[in-house]
């Protein structure tokens, strides 16, 4: 019984990682299928899937107000240059 519980935990963790991967559009067909089948029977993972989607929307909203790597590196160069 204990082994089953552990297996479920490991499965849930794996599914949660797939959910995140899907948010970046990088989950394979098999991984997306595994998410769909798993969340039907697992409310905890269903909740996680909704949560991670919500987080993606928040991140997307905030990205407009963030500097990307290029902009940060230009900023560093500008400072370096000004310092001589």
């Amino acid at each position, binding site marked *: 019984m204990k082994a089953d519980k552990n297996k479920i935990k490991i499965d849930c963790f794996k599914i949660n990682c797939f959910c995140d991967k899907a948010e970046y559009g990088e989950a394979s067909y098999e991984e997306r299928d595994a998410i769909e089948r798993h969340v039907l029977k697992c409310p905890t993972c269903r909740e996680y899937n909704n949560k991670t989607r919500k987080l993606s929307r*928040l991140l997307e909203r905030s990205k407009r*107000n963030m500097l990307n790597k290029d902009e940060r590196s230009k*900023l560093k160069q500008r400072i370096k240059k000004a310092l001589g």
Partner: protein
Amino acid sequence: MAVKKHLLFPDTWVDRYSNYLFNYTISRVNDREIAKDLISETFLAGLKSKDNFKGEATERTWLISILKRKIIDYYRKINSQKGKAEVKMNYVDNEQEGDWMEERVADAGESTVGDLENSELGMAIDECLGQINPRHAEIFKMKTIDEFDTEVVCKEFDISPSNLWVIIHRARVALSKCLKKNWLN
């Protein structure tokens, strides 16, 4: 009891504070290029007057104080009524940089609710990323904010793709928890 003195680490300013300062600025000047210029000027002014830093405020509070002054100067320069309304602070012209810098910064602003919310959200995300495992935060930023390919991130951090997704998962869980505590509520 002795009060903890804060120190300055200029080498890390761009990585640690540029997004926070950018969020603060963009909702006030509403122009990406101007915001970047103001942040750049802020860092330069900080470097120039770092000897005046007394260590009473945190590094970030000190930089925000300088930035606030830069925003005021910018609005003075363009003589904008909007700017006068937005930045409700009044410093005396001949004040020495370094004396006013360590004041606690109160948020003032009259930008639209959406802009302000996005800006606050951005600052909350930045703060939360500062509280999670630094390696996880770096990997998360590179993948999520800078949108690098998985292969590039894995190469940069010498990790496998499955390792990357575990780290991304842990970072997202930690970030969600932190945002729930500090922003969503």
